[in-house]
Structures are given as structure tokens and as C-alpha cells.
């Protein structure tokens, strides 16, 4: 209890090892360290093979059905892409050169390739190295083919003027305006999860048989069958052959290497790899090792197929791997430490893949090379009973021992979650690296059912991406969705449809000169005129994206692992899939900023009449320069995140307006559009176009993130943050999705056994309040400040950014500042 600083285990390790990353599991440590130190210091490099072979194939298949073209391209890639087996690795199947690599998807946004080549090495956010030889391939083979054919170009040319104005600069369509940001042009599919269980248990030979059988049942007299469905099932067959071929090439490679290997231990390992890669994913897996390898082949093959948002997630690993693990343990084939070693090998493979965004907006939204390959553990089963098993605990233990930011571990919590699981989750969170994030079955499952899911499908959801969830056989909507800048909506309200960053141009509609408003109600009415107009543009944008998306992308591999696609003979990226539950979303970014801004004006201008609208607008225009007294007045108005009804009621109305808009117009769009609050790192670029706001925020600085309070204003502690979230939800409505909730605590706040109990209690209360998501940063502010000054000592420091953890020192300075400013709830008690 002396006022010595309490450090989290992560901070202690960093201090002790001077930044060196250390693997804690004694037995596997030598292997894991050899693999890790083989790549950790290398720069991230672009690998062009995927793009090159994809382009080669596409050049040959013009005019054919898209899904078939995609399948042929996958086969061409599987045939020609270099196959690697890393030294010491037990799990194989990388899709790029040794070291840290990123892939290019020219069909998506290849129009940025030229710009990217010029800036890749030096850009502030997530730089990449690229060889001059590869630059040559891009310039000569890849970029020229895709000119005029990319999704991005099609989308940007298809947007009507009103939408275009808030999306891109009409004079330069490669430059984003960050008001209504489309996200479908920097990822070809929404966050996704496959039915891995099917792949592992049926094998791709089995799926191939299934496709053949479907073909035999087609009605040849019906062209919808003989043309469309036939093409789809043919595509599935080619894709099955492709992944089996690719795996088989690994088997051959391993055999070759085994022959030359002198070390008998490694030789045996290579022979085992050869045996397994020859068997899976073609045939059903029979052991834990085989099942894991089968899953990894699928996982990596998906990367070749699509640039899935956040990268394809891993589903409920503790569920589909459990029968194999249980059997192996019972029969003496594996022990917990052997299983952890194999899992760690998978994570090390993941860690070498770097999510490469070539468009400037893409990279600004997704800093830190982040890909959120969520692994879901815990939760309930189809019947509603608890589903946790020994593998769930093993994965938590593995997370505590494994120092990297992969996988993004997500724990599902429900009313029947055992205390043991809650406790181990708390202990893992106390480690301080932000894992696991928590998702609440009590909120998510009823929501999915309300959207049309069955109980069984809803209860089998898996976490995908930041905070999103997927029902692997029932979700069918794949077009990425728009993000809406609420900070901009505030500015548009105060500048009568204009923004300082874009001069005199009328961007939306005129909602009235704020100086003429005689009451707060006038102001709020104007705000909702702008919010509605922006929502209208966002929905138009999405309508166009949905249509274009199906014309540009196909996913025969993903489809082969989807019940409805296989049943209907439809590609997963079709505009509509019969029987599917189609759930999309739109994000509000800067929720706290907007609510606080309106509340500050209500308080100071209309209720207390301390300031006039003229004074506030004048101060905003000057970015508060010389107007500190006004800024202080605004800063001291009620702020969202403090469980203060004054501002929370306003926030709730902003939310309600959005959710009601979703309910009203989703049908016209053909997809259920849900309001979400997930910012990733977009609150930084969104803030960069918004001038000073009436919450006291200075121009160009970050907006509030997710559904969190504005940076540093949540002075009533973490319970108030949670309760503000709770009290601003409109739970009587359906079109609501995740709210990303960050809680930062100091290690002292969760110290010792009492701290574990407190954290567990905190999680229980969060669950009972039915909030969607919760994640913690357990770290001392001093650590972050020091890491900014001495990055070399903190290379291994992980922090929660949004729905993901990333290395702090790899983030851009402005995002680092943003994270530091999110309040640390430190001074509890006295």
C-alpha cells in the first residue's frame, strides 16, 4: 500500500527484458523464439505473387461467370505461388515470402498502386518495403491490366454528385473527404467467419462430392440451373481442387526437405508435416494436429481469395477443435503443452501476415498493420448451456504466456459462464496487453434472433473483426459499409451545411443560421436535419456499393463453406442470397464529441445563458485562440461518459435518430442496416477534417472513439462510463449493433486478489447491463509516455487500440497521443 507504482505483468516483463519479447512457456520457448526472432526485426515487405497470378488468370478468363473466374484464378495461384516451409515451424501454409509480408488485391483498389509504390516506404502509418523487381511487375503486369477495372474506380464514378461531395474530393476522387466514408473500397468483403467445422470434418474431397451431387440434381432445362448454378458448383469443384493441390505441394516440399535434413528430430517433424499436408484439408482430420493444420490451410487460402475486412476470423476454435483435443488427450497423443506449442505456431504464422492497405484512407482507418483475426472462446451452445471446456482455458493460458498480438482473443460471456472462466478471463486481462476482449451473449443473441436468426444459429455466433459477430452458415451480407463522421455533422450544423476544411462549398443542406436559433430545440432540430441528410447519403452510397460489389467480387471458397450458398448454388458475394440473414451496418464516429458539443451549447448558450452563440462561433472560428475562457466554459459543461442525464439524454436522441432511420429505410436497401459505434483508428483521420467543436475540442484533433467518452473527460470513473453507455441505448429498437467500449485502468486498480475479484465483478455487472462489448487497457500512463520517448525499449508493448491490440510503438504519433489521452482510471478512493 505504499505509493510505489504497481506494474502490470506486461510492464514488468518489458522493464526486465528491456523491450525484448519473451515467450513464457518453458517447453516451447526455444522453438518459438527461433521462429519469432527470424522475422521480428525485418521490415514489412510487399509480396506481389498473389496479385500477379490472379491478374494472369483474369487476363485469360474474360467474359466468363465471375465466380468461375475467381475459382480459376485461385487454382492458378495454388499451382504457381511459392511454397515455403519455415525452419522450426510445425504448421505450414504461408501465402507470402519469409518474414513479414503483405498482399495486394489489385481488383479492389489497384488504381492506387502507382501512388502506393511512391509512398510505401515512407508513409507515416504502417510503411512497407517493396523490391524494385516487384515494382517492375506491378508497373508492367499488374497495374496496366486493372486500369479502369477496379472496384474503387467503378464506385467513385458511380456516386451521384450529392454523395460524391461528402465521400471524395470531386476534383480528385482518390482523395477522401472523411465525412461519409465508404469502406467497401479498401476491403472486398465484410468481416467474415467460415464454417471451419465443415472443412475439418468433411474435407474438401467431401465438399467436392457435395458439389458434384448438386450438379447431378440440376434441371438442365432451366437455364438458371444449367448456366448460373452449374457455373457456381463448377467453381466450387475447381476451388476444392485448388486448396488440395496447394496443401499437397506443401507435403512434397516437406518430404524433399526431410530427405536433406540431418537432425533426426527435425526430420521426423518434416515427415509428419508431409503426412498431414497430404491428408488435410482433402480428407477429414482425425487428430488435433491435423484439425489445426486443416483450419490453417483454410484460413490462409482465404487470404488469397479476398481482402476480407480485418482478415478472415477463426471462429469458435475451442468448440470445433475440442473433440480432437479431448480424444488425443484421452488416447495419450497430446498433452496441454504440446497443444499450446501447435497453437503458438499458428499465431506466429498469423503474425507474419501484415494487413496491407494501399489506399490512404484504408491505412488511416487501420493503423498498426492490424488484422483482427479473432479467435472466439467461451459462450453458450445451441441449447443455451455453457460451452466452455478445457481448451477454452488452455487458450487463455496460452494467451498469458504468448507475448504477441495474435490471435485477437475474444471471450463470449453469458449468464451461465462459470466463475472459473470469469476469473481466468480477469487474470488474463490483468496481464495488461488488452486480451481478451469481451462480447456479451445476453445482448448479442437476442439481437440476432430479432434480425431473423434461429436460436441455434444465433447462439453459435463467432466474433469477427473488432466487435462484429457472424453466424457462419446464416449471415450472407458481405459488402462493407459506410462510416459517418458525427463531428462533421456538428460542424455542418454550426456552419449551415458547410465545413471550414472545404471552404464555402455547400456540402449538405442549409439547416439555418445558428445565430438565428432562439432555443436549444432549434439547434437540435438543425442537427437532426444534418444527421438525416448525411444518413440519406450514406444509404445511397451503400445501395450503389451493394450492387457494384456483387459485380466485382466472388468467393467460391467462402461459399463452399456456407450452408446456404451450397444449397442455393449461389456465390457468397451475390447481391442477395435466399434464406440468408442480411445484416449490414453504419458507424457513427465521434459520438461523445457530438453529444458533448450539443450539451455544451445547451448549457452555456440556452440554459445558463453565460455565452452567446456569436461568442461560441467566434471562438470556434479562431480555434479558441485567445478565447480560453470560452473554451473552459464549454469544457466544463456536462460530458458523456459520466452517467450524467443532462448529456446522456442528448446522446440517446442522437442514437435513436440513427437507429430509427435504419429501421425505416433498411427495407428499401434490402439489408438490415444497424447502427454501430466502432471506430478502429478512424477517429483520428475523421477528426483531422473537423474544425474546433463546442465541446472544447481543438481543430483537427481526434474525435471520441467508439462509444467511449471524449478523451480525458470521463472523470467519474469506469462505472460511470459503462452506465452512460447503458443509459444511451435505445433497447426498444432492433437496428442496433456493437458499441465499442474501452476502459483504461491502472494496474494498481486491479492489483492482487481483490483486484481480480473487482475486475470479475465489473465484468458481471457489464454482462447484466447487456452491453455488447468491453475491453481493457491495464497500463500506467507513464509507461505510454516513456514508450513514446524510448520506443526501442518498448517494441513489445501491446495496447488496445479499438477492437484490436497493436504494438504501441508502431502507431503514428497522433494515434499514440489519442490513446494516452483516453482517461486512465487511476485514483480510486483517496
Amino acid at each position, binding site marked *: *500500500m*505504499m505509493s510505489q507504482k504497481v506494474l502490470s505483468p506486461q510492464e514488468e516483463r518489458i522493464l526486465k527484458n528491456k523491450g525484448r519479447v519473451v515467450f513464457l512457456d518453458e517447453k516451447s520457448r526455444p522453438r518459438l523464439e527461433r521462429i519469432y526472432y527470424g522475422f521480428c526485426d525485418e521490415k514489412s515487405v510487399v509480396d506481389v505473387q498473389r496479385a500477379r497470378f490472379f491478374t494472369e488468370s483474369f487476363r485469360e478468363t474474360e467474359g466468363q461467370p465471375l465466380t468461375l473466374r475467381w475459382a480459376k484464378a485461385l487454382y492458378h495461384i495454388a499451382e504457381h505461388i511459392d511454397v515455403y516451409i519455415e525452419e522450426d515451424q510445425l504448421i505450414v501454409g504461408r501465402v507470402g515470402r519469409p518474414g513479414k509480408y503483405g498482399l495486394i488485391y489489385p481488383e479492389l483498389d489497384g488504381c492506387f498502386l502507382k501512388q502506393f509504390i511512391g509512398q510505401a516506404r515512407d508513409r507515416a502509418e504502417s510503411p512497407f518495403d517493396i523490391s524494385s523487381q516487384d515494382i517492375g511487375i506491378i508497373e508492367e503486369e499488374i497495374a496496366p491490366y486493372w486500369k479502369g477495372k477496379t472496384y474503387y474506380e467503378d464506385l467513385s464514378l458511380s456516386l451521384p454528385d450529392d454523395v460524391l461531395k461528402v465521400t471524395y474530393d470531386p476534383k480528385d476522387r482518390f482523395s477522401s473527404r472523411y465525412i461519409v466514408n465508404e469502406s467497401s473500397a479498401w476491403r472486398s468483403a465484410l468481416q467474415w467467419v467460415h464454417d471451419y467445422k465443415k472443412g475439418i470434418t468433411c474435407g474438401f474431397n467431401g465438399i467436392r462430392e457435395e458439389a458434384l451431387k448438386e450438379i447431378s440434381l440440376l434441371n438442365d432445362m432451366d437455364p438458371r440451373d444449367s448456366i448460373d448454378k452449374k457455373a457456381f458448383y463448377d467453381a466450387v469443384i475447381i476451388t476444392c481442387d485448388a486448396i488440395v493441390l496447394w496443401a499437397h505441394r506443401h507435403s512434397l516440399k516437406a518430404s524433399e526437405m526431410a530427405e536433406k535434413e540431418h537432425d533426426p528430430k527435425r526430420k521426423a517433424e518434416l515427415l509428419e508435416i508431409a503426412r498431414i499436408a497430404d491428408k488435410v484439408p482433402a480428407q477429414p482430420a482425425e487428430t488435433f494436429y491435423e484439425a489445426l493444420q486443416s483450419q490453417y490451410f483454410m484460413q490462409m487460402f482465404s487470404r488469397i481469395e479476398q481482402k476480407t475486412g480485418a482478415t478472415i476470423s477463426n471462429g469458435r476454435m475451442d468448440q470445433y477443435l475440442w473433440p480432437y483435443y479431448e480424444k488425443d488427450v484421452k488416447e495419450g497423443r497430446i498433452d496441454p503443452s504440446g497443444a499450446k506449442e501447435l497453437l503458438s505456431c499458428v499465431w506466429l504464422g498469423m503474425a507474419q501476415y501484415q494487413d496491407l492497405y494501399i489506399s490512404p484512407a484504408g491505412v488511416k482507418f487501420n493503423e498498426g498493420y492490424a488484422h483482427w483475426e479473432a479467435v472466439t472462446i467461451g459462450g453458450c451452445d445451441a441449447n443455451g448451456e455453457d460451452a466452455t471446456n478445457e481448451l477454452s482455458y488452455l487458450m487463455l493460458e496460452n494467451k498469458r504466456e504468448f507475448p504477441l498480438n495474435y490471435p485477437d482473443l475474444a471471450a463470449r460471456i453469458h449468464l451461465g459462464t462459470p466463475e472459473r472462466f470469469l476469473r481466468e478471463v480477469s487474470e488474463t486481462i490483468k496481464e495488461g496487453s488488452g486480451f481478451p476482449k469481451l462480447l456479451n451473449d445476453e445482448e448479442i443473441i437476442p439481437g440476432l434472433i430479432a434480425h431473423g436468426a434461429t436460436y441455434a444459429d444465433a447462439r453459435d455466433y463467432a466474433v469477427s473483426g473488432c466487435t462484429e459477430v457472424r453466424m457462419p452458415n446464416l449471415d450472407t451480407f458481405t459488402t462493407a459499409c459506410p462510416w459517418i463522421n458525427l463531428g462533421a455533422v456538428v460542424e455542418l450544423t454550426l456552419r449551415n451545411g458547410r465545413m471550414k476544411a472545404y471552404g464555402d462549398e455547400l456540402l449538405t443542406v442549409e439547416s439555418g443560421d445558428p445565430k438565428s436559433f432562439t432555443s436549444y430545440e432549434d439547434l437540435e432540430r438543425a442537427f437532426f436535419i444534418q444527421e438525416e441528410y448525411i444518413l440519406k447519403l450514406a444509404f445511397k452510397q451503400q445501395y450503389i456499393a451493394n450492387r457494384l460489389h456483387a459485380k466485382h467480387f466472388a468467393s467460391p471458397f467462402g461459399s463452399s463453406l456456407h450452408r446456404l450458398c451450397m444449397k442455393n448454388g449461389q456465390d457468397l458475394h451475390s447481391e442477395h442470397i435466399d434464406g440468408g440473414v442480411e445484416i449490414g451496418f453504419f458507424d457513427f464516429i465521434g459520438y461523445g464529441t457530438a453529444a458533448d458539443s450539443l450539451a455544451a451549447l445547451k448549457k452555456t448558450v440556452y440554459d445558463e445563458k453565460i455565452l452567446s452563440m456569436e461568442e461560441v462561433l467566434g471562438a470556434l472560428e479562431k480555434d479558441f485562440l485567445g478565447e480560453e475562457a470560452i473554451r*473552459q466554459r464549454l469544457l*466544463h459543461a456536462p460530458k458523456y461518459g459520466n452517467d450524467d442525464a443532462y448529456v446522456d439524454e442528448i446522446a440517446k436522441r442522437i442514437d435513436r435518430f440513427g437507429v430509427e432511420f435504419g429501421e425505416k429505410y433498411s427495407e428499401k436497401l434490402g439489408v438490415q442496416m444497424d447502427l454501430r459505434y466502432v471506430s478502429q483508428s478512424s477517429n483520428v483521420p475523421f477528426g483531422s477534417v473537423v474544425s474546433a467543436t463546442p465541446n472544447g475540442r481543438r481543430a483537427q484533433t481526434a474525435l471520441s472513439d467508439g462509444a467511449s467518452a471524449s478523451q480525458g473527460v470521463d472523470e467519474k470513473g469506469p*462505472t460511470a462510463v459503462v452506465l452512460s453507455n447503458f443509459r444511451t441505448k435505445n433497447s426498444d429498437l432492433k437496428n442496433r449493433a456493437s458499441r465499442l467500449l474501452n476502459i483504461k485502468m491502472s494496474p494498481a486498480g486491479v492489483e492482487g486478489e481483490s483486484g481480480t475479484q*473487482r475486475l470479475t*465483478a*465489473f465484468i*458481471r455487472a457489464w454482462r447484466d447491463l447487456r452491453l455488447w462489448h468491453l475491453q481493457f487497457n491495464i497500463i500506467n500512463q507513464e509507461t505510454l509516455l516513456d514508450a513514446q520517448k524510448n520506443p526501442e525499449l518498448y517494441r513489445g508493448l501491446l495496447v488496445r487500440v479499438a477492437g484490436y491490440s497493436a504494438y504501441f510503438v508502431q502507431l503514428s504519433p497522433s494515434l499514440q497521443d489519442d490513446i494516452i489521452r483516453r482517461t486512465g482510471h487511476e485514483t480510486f478512493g*483517496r
Partner: protein
Amino acid sequence: MGTVFNIQHFSIHDGPGIRTVVFLKGCPLRCRWCANPESQSPTPQIGWTKGECIHCNGCLNGIKDLNCRFEEDDLFWDTTAKCDAKEVKRVCPTGALHLMGEEMTAGEVMEEVEKDAPFFVASGGGITISGGEPLLQPDFTCEILKLAGKRNMHRAIESCSYAPWEDFKKVLHQVDYLLTDVKTMDDETHKKQTGVSNELILENLRRVRKEFPYLPIHVRTPVIPGVNDSKEDIEAILAFVYEIRANYELLPYHRLGVPKYESLHRVYPMGNAELDTEKYMELETCAVMSFAQRPLGGQYGPPKTTPRGIDTMLMGGAGI
């Protein structure tokens, strides 16, 4: 009605679980190390936080009776003038000049406390009434605690135990957990350092144990350099702690209250005193060891957050 100077959520040191602490204004003691000097006077008073002042001069002619003026870098005002919280807020944009203490009804207090109820249930926490000194407003304290009781809240008070027994007793009927200070067993020192004798305090605590045999008592001693930082001091207190079958905890002296004295234009009575860390650790070890050797129950250390608060009951009347 009572005078409250702060309501603090997510408090984790003032009783088991996650708690909300209500700080009442007014204290009969004048401990020289008091970290909350603004809590001593029973009535609302003006304070000024230098670090938050942006020298906008809004206060200078803002409230007439107050007669605010800067002398060099410091703000001075007429401390006897009465003024209203709204007025103060109106003249000062940053809250540097502020009114400490607010008249509230028990219902208003409960409305704020109850906000965190979901966390109380989950953690075995609840409400703690602290101060100042809650027993200086016994009826108000009782009223709040009764409202809390009707809401199934776990109820604690944090008291110096210096109050007429009848007041103490009345309040304790509404209390599940008593946190109290025993600063020193030496009466002369106690008088010198706190302004009052410790006789009433010790007598009260003995009566608490006698008349409330199952009430958990958690005794704390702030270890103050030169006042009670010897082994003998702590051993004497420990003997008393055992006598009343209480749990025990030492708290190290800290200087976090210094800026508050500045803002009240008061001289910090402790000067530059610092607590010797090593000495403190020795005392803590002594207390821990002493408890370890005790044949009958009781524990050393901060109030525990335990699974669903179950053993807050077990901790009751340690040793019985």
C-alpha cells in the same frame, strides 16, 4: 438536509467491493496531517485551485460581497461572505474558484449513489458514508443509510468515532461495516495532534464491540512521521485492536492534500515532513506478523473484495 462535499463512484479502498462514497462536510477533529482540509468546516466554503486559474479576472468584480482580488499570483477573498454555488460557477469558467460543499437531501444523495447499484450487486460493494465526519450529521447519515437499507445495499461508515454514544449507536443500527481510525493510544499526543482526547473514541469503540458483537470493525492507522511511527505506537494500537476484535490496516502518510491548503490560504501544519519508506515497511511487517500469530481470526490489510461479497459476513465479529 445535510452538507455533502463529494460523492465518489468506483471507490475501492473504503470497504469491500466496488463502492460509492459520500463525503459529508464537517469534522470535530483537526488532525495536522488532514488531507481534506476542506472537509473540516461544517458549512459550504469557497476554494480556489491555482493550477486551474486562467487569470480571466471574471471573479474580480463578479460577486460583490466576495471582494476577490489578486495579490501577486494568488487570489484572495472575503472568507466570511456568503455566496451561492451558481453565482460562483457563473463568474469562474474553469471551476478554479468553486464552492466546496452542497446542501442536499438524503433522497438526492441516494439518487446519485444508486446509479452504481449494478456494480454493488456484482461485487459485494455498496455505500460508504465518510467525511469529514458522518457522526457530526447523525440524523442525515441515518436517513441516507435507511434509504440504502431499503435498497438492499451493503452499508459502511468511515468515522473517527468521536461522537456522543447515542448518535453513534443510532447510526450503527443502520450499518453493516464500520471503518474507523485509531491514530494513537497516547492521549497527550492525540490531543496535541488532533485537537481532542482519544478517551471518547476508545470508549465508544469498546461499546461498539459490546453492543454490536457481530459488526465487522476495520481499524486504520494513518502512520504519521514523528507522531505514531514507532513500533511501540503500533503495538499499543494492535493490543486495542485485538481487544475489540477488529481487522486492521496501516495507511502511509502522504502529502496529496498540500495544494488544498494552498487553495484555502492555510499553512500546511506538517511542513516538509516525509514518511521514511523503510520505517513504514517495518511497521507494516510488524502488524502483519502480529496478526499471523494471533490464534483467533481477524485480518490485516485493506477491506477485501471477495467472490460476490460472501465473506463480508464471515469477517463480522472476527474471533467470535
